[in-house]
């Protein structure tokens, strides 16, 4: 993996994580290694100082094409003897899962700017974020079920929170990819942005939340987003 696969910068109190690993952020074993290190750094910075928000985006055309299924099968094959022996899910899974689900616990707004393909475990990064701004060209989905498995990094839980049981049934069980328009229709996406306009919208949203002066928590994300939209109508 290239040295600069995960770049963390800070602009006016907003952390920006740009993912630009090989193969359009194909989630290989080395991707996960770099991702976990980057997220550990995010966690450390969040503890050290007051941040206003975080933006996650892909450095190229795509957010992430998701996990390398062969690598996933290989990793699981190594873990299964431990599972059979102890009856417990391997610790490595919980460590990996933590670096997805902790995004939802951060005390400041976390916005994923979704471009191009945002698939499988890649879509779980976006789903664990508090907000998803989706550019017009995006194709999103959790196709794990079509490979005989399921999304296990918070994808099912967060699909229910964002789209309700009504749509999570379709998104998770069918595993079909969907467009930006469909993402907005089922409210998986907060909004659709024009090409290359997603990051600007994310900054605007974070600025609005900062400007309210109110305490921010993830469970109030929808409330803040509604007020953000109302502020733009005036």
């Amino acid at each position, binding site marked *: 993996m290239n040295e600069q696969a995960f770049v963390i910068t800070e602009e006016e109190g907003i952390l920006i994580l740009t993912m630009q690993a090989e193969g359009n952020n194909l989630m290989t074993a080395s991707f996960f290694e770099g991702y976990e290190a980057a997220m550990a750094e995010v966690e450390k910075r969040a503890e050290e100082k007051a941040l206003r928000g975080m933006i996650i985006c892909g450095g190229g055309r795509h957010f992430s094409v998701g996990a390398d299924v062969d690598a996933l099968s290989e990793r*699981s094959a190594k873990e299964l003897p431990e599972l059979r022996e102890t009856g417990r*899910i391997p610790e490595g899974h919980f460590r990996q899962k933590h670096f997805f689900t902790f995004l939802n616990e951060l005390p400041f707004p976390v916005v994923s700017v979704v471009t191009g393909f945002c698939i499988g475990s890649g879509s779980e990064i976006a789903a664990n974020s508090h907000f998803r701004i989706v550019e017009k060209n995006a194709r999103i989905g959790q196709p794990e079920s079509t490979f005989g498995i*399921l999304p296990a990094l918070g994808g099912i*839980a967060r699909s229910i929170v964002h789209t309700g049981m009504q749509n999570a*049934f379709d998104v998770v069980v069918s595993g079909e990819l969907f467009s930006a328009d469909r993402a907005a229709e089922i409210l998986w996406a907060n909004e659709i942005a024009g090409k290359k306009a997603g990051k600007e919208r994310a900054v605007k949203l974070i600025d609005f939340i900062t400007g309210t002066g109110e305490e921010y928590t993830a469970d109030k994300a929808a409330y803040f987003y509604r007020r953000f939209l109302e502020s733009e109508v005036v």
Partner: protein
Amino acid sequence: MIIQKHKLFTEIIGCKALGELYSEKEKLDGISVLLLHGDDMEEAPDDAVTSWLSAVDFITVFAAENISRFSYEFLSKFDVRLGGAEYPASSARADDRYRLLCGDMAYEVLSSGTSDTAPNFVTVLSGEESFDAKALAYVNRVCGDKTEAQMKILTRCLKAAANDSIKAVLTAESEGFYALMAQKTEDAADE
């Protein structure tokens, strides 16, 4: 009433009231998904039936072309609703159940009173076929060619949200993933 068993779901045709379904509930043991065609149904409030429906461990899909003639209290007992048109916001209620069924943002929109329709409450089916055929096609498409074991695990994950909590879904996801991975590995070794 006809109980039609498919590989991954069970379809109920010609049911007149939920009590009729309840009286044959043993026939639904072990299923993953129930598709109930409801255009011939009438609401008949019954606490025992309501309690049973709220606690079942399979996904419940209610389909009715004229879905707005049913009350929110009745429709919200189901996990998924298929209709011929959106459901009016004035008939829905922004409560915890709505939030679970439709999502946080839909709940927020309904609470704000800014929408004429209840967001995410009904999946509108369109097309030239009969409504029952469209509902059947929807469930067939979603279930696809999964195995029964996979369908049960997916169902368990989704129902954990309804019968327990979102935290329970996170646990169910992890357990389900490794159960399915173990199955895949065994299948690959057998080939």
